[in-house]
């Protein structure tokens, strides 16, 4: 279907190639997963396949890209749009019309189809994707998952043969993301669509692909089956494959399974099918109790109701100690972000109190503003950036609080690996760097409490590890960290305490092992893999440390027999 020959591409004004000597072929009906770190060129490759590079972006372009034997650059744009559909990252920014049905028809109108043909296609896609109920709704009132499904529907209505999906779930919560991937798999299997998916969250889509391409610095590093990609990533120490595959690759399994099901089957075979290690049990190691630490924040009998809405928070009681790293988990609408905003002082509690440590005792915060001792990073780092340089962003916050730069700006920028961007315009940086600038701009006051709302959204494995490491260091140095996340793997790896919320209430609060070890669905991939064999394991390193020796022992004894 696609043939790329020695493709080289430079964005306008860039001296570094975004794509560097790419040659590959994609067959009809294939499901290809393109993975790689941020800036590796996977999104650029997707745009090349959709004909947007160089048409929309400009820049220097070399080599050839062929679609069904024809040079893609010589193809009529309307013809290409009929054959190749593309879905982008942020559903919000792709919607053009106000109503759902009009949005679905937008592409069809552009193709100049007749009324009758448009009715037929809109009706077909609506019933296939189950969107009929939403037909009369406004796009603004849809959830993130529904919006992305609508974007997909609008593209599918154009009846393309190939779907290019550029990190389509990076802005969605895990449940909506899973739904979306299942839908794409169904499309691939039932209708034979060729699918090219670029993605960073591999644990959910690795097993769906027929073929995995891993990119590095604009080049194809690996192109093969998911198992081959897993082996390569494990061999080169790259965290680019899901934890299960990474774990078995680390144990030297020649063709590592990529799903929990496959992994459990292999463990069962290798370990004799019984629990070999009681371990600390689902309770796990004791939590680093907040009672033992000096309290920084106390939330007492807190209730919050949105005007015209339901009760977002119901009777919340939480104590956070100095240096604790707390992850708040829960589905959409559980009240996590509201809790953070109330603690930050951006929303006024309906009932109850938020107490902060001040001068050796817990006192209620006065005034409307959070003050310099609480730092809050919202979901969108772009909301923070407006100064000409990164340094000025930090100085702006300091000035507002009447503080001086006693070297903290330089220190913080170095710590966040932003030193070389000190005099760059923050809007010229990548999304991961922008987030770190936003984080620095609130951390510069040296707060006691750091609140973060879904900071891992859209980050690749490497950036996530960097953020996790940084936050852990801050916590160790005494700053309390409270972060809201959907990312169970991240919470298990870095948090010292996990709070689970549901419908405005705290349903579970304890160490990651206590909370996630007991949960069936809110557990890590490794946790699900090891359940029953060796309870109390949540992370990759724990699994390697505790199951690894057993695995080798069994293997050795197996080979000596």
């Amino acid at each position, binding site marked *: 279907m696609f043939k790329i020959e020695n493709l080289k591409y430079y964005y306008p004004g860039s001296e570094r190639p975004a794509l560097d000597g790419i040659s590959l072929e994609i067959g009809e009906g294939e499901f290809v997963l393109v993975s790689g770190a941020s800036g590796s060129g996977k999104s650029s490759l997707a745009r090349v396949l*959709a004909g*947007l590079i160089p*048409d*929309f972006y400009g820049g220097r372009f070399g080599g050839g890209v062929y679609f069904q034997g024809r040079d893609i650059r010589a193809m*009529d*744009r*309307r013809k290409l*749009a009929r054959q190749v*559909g*593309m879905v*982008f990252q*942020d559903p*919000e*920014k*792709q919607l*053009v*019309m*106000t*109503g759902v049905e*009009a949005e679905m*028809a*937008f*592409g*069809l*109108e*552009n*193709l*100049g189809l007749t*009324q009758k043909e*448009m009715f037929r296609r809109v009706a077909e896609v609506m019933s296939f994707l189950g969107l009929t109920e939403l037909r*009369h*709704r406004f*796009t*603004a009132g849809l959830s993130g998952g529904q919006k992305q499904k609508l*974007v997909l529907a*609008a*593209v599918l209505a*154009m009846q393309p043969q190939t779907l290019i999906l550029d990190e389509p779930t990076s802005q969605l919560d895990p449940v909506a993301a899973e739904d979306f991937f299942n839908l794409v798999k169904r499309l691939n299997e039932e209708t034979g669509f060729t699918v090219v998916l670029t993605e960073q969250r591999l644990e959910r889509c690795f097993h769906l692909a027929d073929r995995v391409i891993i990119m590095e610095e604009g080049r194809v590093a690996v192109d093969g089956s998911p198992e081959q990609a897993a082996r390569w990533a494990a061999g080169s120490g790259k965290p680019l494959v899901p934890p299960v595959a990474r774990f078995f690759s680390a144990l030297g399994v020649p063709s590592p399974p990529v799903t929990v099901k496959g992994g459990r089957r292999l463990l069962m075979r290798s370990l004799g099918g019984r629990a070999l290690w009681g371990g600390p049990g689902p309770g796990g190691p004791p939590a680093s109790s907040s009672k033992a630490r000096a309290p920084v924040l106390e939330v007492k009998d807190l209730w919050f109701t949105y005007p*015209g809405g339901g009760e977002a928070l119901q009777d919340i009681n939480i104590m956070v100690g100095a240096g604790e790293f707390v992850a708040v988990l829960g589905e959409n609408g559980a009240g996590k972000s509201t809790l953070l*905003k109330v603690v*930050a002082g*951006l929303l006024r509690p309906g009932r109850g109190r938020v107490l902060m440590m001040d001068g050796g005792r817990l006192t209620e915060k006065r005034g*409307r*503003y*959070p003050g310099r001792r609480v*730092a*809050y990073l*919202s979901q*969108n780092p*772009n*909301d*923070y*950036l*407006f100064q000409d340089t990164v340094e000025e962003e930090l100085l702006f916050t300091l000035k*507002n*609080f009447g503080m001086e730069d006693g070297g903290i700006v330089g220190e913080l920028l170095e710590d966040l690996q932003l030193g070389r961007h000190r005099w760059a315009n923050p*809007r010229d940086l990548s999304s991961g760097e922008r987030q770190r600038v936003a984080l620095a*701009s*609130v951390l510069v*006051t040296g707060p006691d409490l750091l609140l973060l709302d879904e900071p891992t959204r859209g980050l690749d494995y490497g950036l996530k590890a960097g953020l996790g490491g940084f936050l852990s260091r801050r916590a160790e140095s005494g700053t309390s960290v409270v972060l809201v996340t959907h990312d169970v793997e991240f919470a298990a790896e870095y948090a010292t305490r996990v709070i689970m919320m549901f419908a405005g209430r705290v349903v579970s609060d304890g160490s990651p092992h206590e909370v996630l070890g007991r949960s069936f669905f809110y557990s890590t991939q490794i946790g699900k893999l090891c359940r029953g064999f060796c309870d109390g394991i949540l992370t990759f390193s724990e699994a390697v440390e505790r199951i690894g020796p057993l695995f080798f022992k069994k293997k050795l004894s197996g080979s000596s027999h």
Partner: protein
Amino acid sequence: MLDKLFYSEKGSFLQALHPLAALVYLGTFLALALAFTHPLYLLGILIVLILALWLAEGLEAWEGCLKAALLMMLLVMIINPLVVRAGDTVIWHGPGIPVFGRLTVSLEALCYGAVMSVRLLDIISVFCLYNLTVHPDRALNLFSRFAGKSVLVISLATKILPAMAWDLERIRSVQQVRGVDFGKGTFKEKIKKYSSVVNILLLSSLESSMETAESMQARAFGSGPRTCYSRSLWRPRDTLVVSCCAAALAAALWGLLHGFGRYTFYPQLDYLIDGSGTVAVLLAVMSSLSVPVIAGWGWRRWHCLKSKI
């Protein structure tokens, strides 16, 4: 509160009309409110409009509009008598003011101001009813046959405006977290604080507009002549509404040609009811405009009517 002012699907009679029929109905109200100067006629239109708003479950939203309109109405009622000297019946002689001369307030000017504020309320109510009963996409769709690109721009803007209001609020709270106190400082300082909020909003909007443009390009926008998707069907109820509008307009036109529907304020107030013709035309106009309201009431009460029309 704001969401009450915008369209939401309630399944009411007026919402179930073809957008063209709905626009004709609302346009008739607007035209008549502008054509009539007679207080009873303007009040009559207002009564029918309030009934239509009640049927569209929009009285709460209308109250909101009313509060906003009240200030404007008060201004009309105060300024008009102060600057207009055409009335004979002077009820107050005020002090002399440079340029204006001596202030006088006449009964005629006072009445004219009051009637004009009723007209203003009529017009505001029509727009309120439009917001509640006509789906923006469907209304724009009517025009996209003639002015496709302008309609797309309007559609994008109407989608973006509420989103921008939401973004502004979010950016403001982020600035608060960074120590910006919007309540403090001189007027100039406050302007500076708000301008940085707007600055962030514009920077982010510019960035996201590129992504929207890219998505439009990927969906073949601008690749050739476009067609127009419309799902609106013409039903008996639309014919009924348009016929009623035609009847109301015909009665009004006949009335205006024969001197009914207009009212003389200056130099002295005319009789409010000047012969039976005034009442007859008023009744004809009001009853024609009320038919869709009565049909809407029946639509809510009797399910069979829904399927019949």
